[in-house]
């Protein structure tokens, strides 16, 4: 696999603020094409990682390579290949929507004004309104239209739907997925909401306490993990080191195991695991430096 087939590669990336490390030892290789979800609780370091990816921050350690280029170089060519939608989709509040588009045109090498206008017209967003007077959902749509008009190869979105109501959230994801379907763009977005991811994402990165705890192709991850349910037992079952989590109820023990391990003894049943349960199980694990699980990058 050549470098350009990766949308994003990080090697030992860490970021330290004055108050401490926000991100440590982050090594990722995310394939180009498709939708990548970055999942983690608030404060896990998602925003820091995304800002490093788009070059807004410089890493304290390690290197970040986007579409085969070091992002810290920040040349107009590399900048124009990456679209970014920051948290709370900031816009110049006093600009009209038309002026926001003019801003995009003035500050980019390629900017598809017609595309942006068509998208906004379809959503009934008037061009002569000031951005600050639009609803939250409309502001998000304007910001998305701006980012998509760059025709980026990588589109990075930080919690794009967190502040939107359910209807606006649905519309936003619809537009986003429509753009993905049109092809050519890799989408990397962060979220602290896990459900619905299965439907829209191909790839998953779980971040917790500033460390990557799980990364892989979603189908592969689901195929690799099984829930084993059997009679309650207190003995150490993790002989092979494949048990991600063990939950004991009054009569049963439920194990989440990796590598498709088969039932260990009679009386045990294997079940597929839901994505949300899988993510939660990894988030509940105590953070250890070497706990990252990688799977199916080249699958």
């Amino acid at each position: 696999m050549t470098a350009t087939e990766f949308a994003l590669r990080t090697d030992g990336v860490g970021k330290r603020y004055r108050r401490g490390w926000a991100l440590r030892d982050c090594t990722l290789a995310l394939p180009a094409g498709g939708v990548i979800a970055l999942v983690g609780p608030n404060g896990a370091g998602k925003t820091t990682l995304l800002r490093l990816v788009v070059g807004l921050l410089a890493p304290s350690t390690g290197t970040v390579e986007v579409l085969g280029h070091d992002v810290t170089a920040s040349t107009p060519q590399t900048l124009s290949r990456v679209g970014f939608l920051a948290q709370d989709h900031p816009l110049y509040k006093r600009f009209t929507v038309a002026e926001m588009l003019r801003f995009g045109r003035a500050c980019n090498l390629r900017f598809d004004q017609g595309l942006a206008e068509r998208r906004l017209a379809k959503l009934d967003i008037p061009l002569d309104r000031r951005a600050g007077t639009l609803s939250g959902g409309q502001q998000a749509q304007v910001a998305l239209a701006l980012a998509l008009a760059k025709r980026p190869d990588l589109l990075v979105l930080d919690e794009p739907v967190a502040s939107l109501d359910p209807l606006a959230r649905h519309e936003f994801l619809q537009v986003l997925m429509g753009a993905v379907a049109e092809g050519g763009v890799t989408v990397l977005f962060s979220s602290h909401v896990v459900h619905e991811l299965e439907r829209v994402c191909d790839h998953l990165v779980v971040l917790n306490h500033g460390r990557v705890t799980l990364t892989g192709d979603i189908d592969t991850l689901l195929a690799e993990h099984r829930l084993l349910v059997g009679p309650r037992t207190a003995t150490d079952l993790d002989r092979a080191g494949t048990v991600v989590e063990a939950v004991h109820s009054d009569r049963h023990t439920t194990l989440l195991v990796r590598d498709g391990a088969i039932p260990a003894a009679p009386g045990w049943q294997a079940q597929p695991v839901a994505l949300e349960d899988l993510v939660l199980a990894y988030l509940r694990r105590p953070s250890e430096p070497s706990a990252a699980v990688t799977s199916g990058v080249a699958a």
Partner: protein
Amino acid sequence: MTWLIWRQHRTEVCVLGLLVGMFGIALLVLGTQAHDLFPGGPARCAGEAGINEDCAASFRRLDEEYGYIENLLAGFYLVPVVIGAFLGAPLLARELEDGTWQLAWTQAVPRMRWLAAKLAALAGVTVTLTALFTAVLTWFRQPFDAWEGRFQYDAFDVEGLVPVAYALFAFGVATAAGAILRRSLPAFGVAFGAFLAARMSVALLARPAYATPLTTMEPVPVGGSKDQAGHRPAPSFADWMIEHGYADATGRRLSGTEYYELEGAANRAGTNLNQFLHARGIQQFEVYHPADRFWTFQLIEAALFVAVAAVLIGVVVWRVRRRMI
């Protein structure tokens, strides 16, 4: 970029332009009338207040009719800080407080180019507006300068080069404070405070020390009253008096108490004070900067403030370059 900078900062530029324009036109109108009091030009009457009858009359009318404006002019020493801080404070702070820095710096314009364009444009507006206003004010003050010299605080601080340097200093402080505090209004406040503190300490402490002042020392004249003793041949009205007083025959300066003791002794003896002092070999001394040092001092002070502004802008550039914001 040009369009973007104009669109983002046009409100500040227009408001400041309007204020400078209004005050400037008012000063031009009033200044024309004040200049008309001096048919030969105010410079010809410089130092002639007590000698030339016509000049004396002109100065008297100037004081009566326009003296109140001169007092108001002192307030204009705030013009540079208003212009500089008003343009500098929002440069980075507004992007940081609205989150739009993430929008601005992820377009295809690299952040250093973005910053360079913004700094150049807004510093340029700061210099232009301040220079225009200062030019008008310097011209307006010509008759007053002919009367009082240019070294007083209400002349030196609003004329020539230094107001532009003060404005750049305020611009630098406001921009740097905005980058660090991430808020426009506190950044404006910091610039205002720093401006007042720096200007006051420089004017009071540093400025007299830009060069070694000259000193004259001569015996107290026998004749004339104490008031006429104020007639000094060496330092003229336009020089900047730093210190004056009395010294004994050896040149040792007398303290206030020593002088009052002499004055009391003269009164008790019932003799004329000047004769009394003269008889004891008391001398008058004066420490001053001559008027022709005006431009040297302007250059030194302007360089001082521009250098600090450059350092502050350097800090901003360094922070943005290192992606600390």
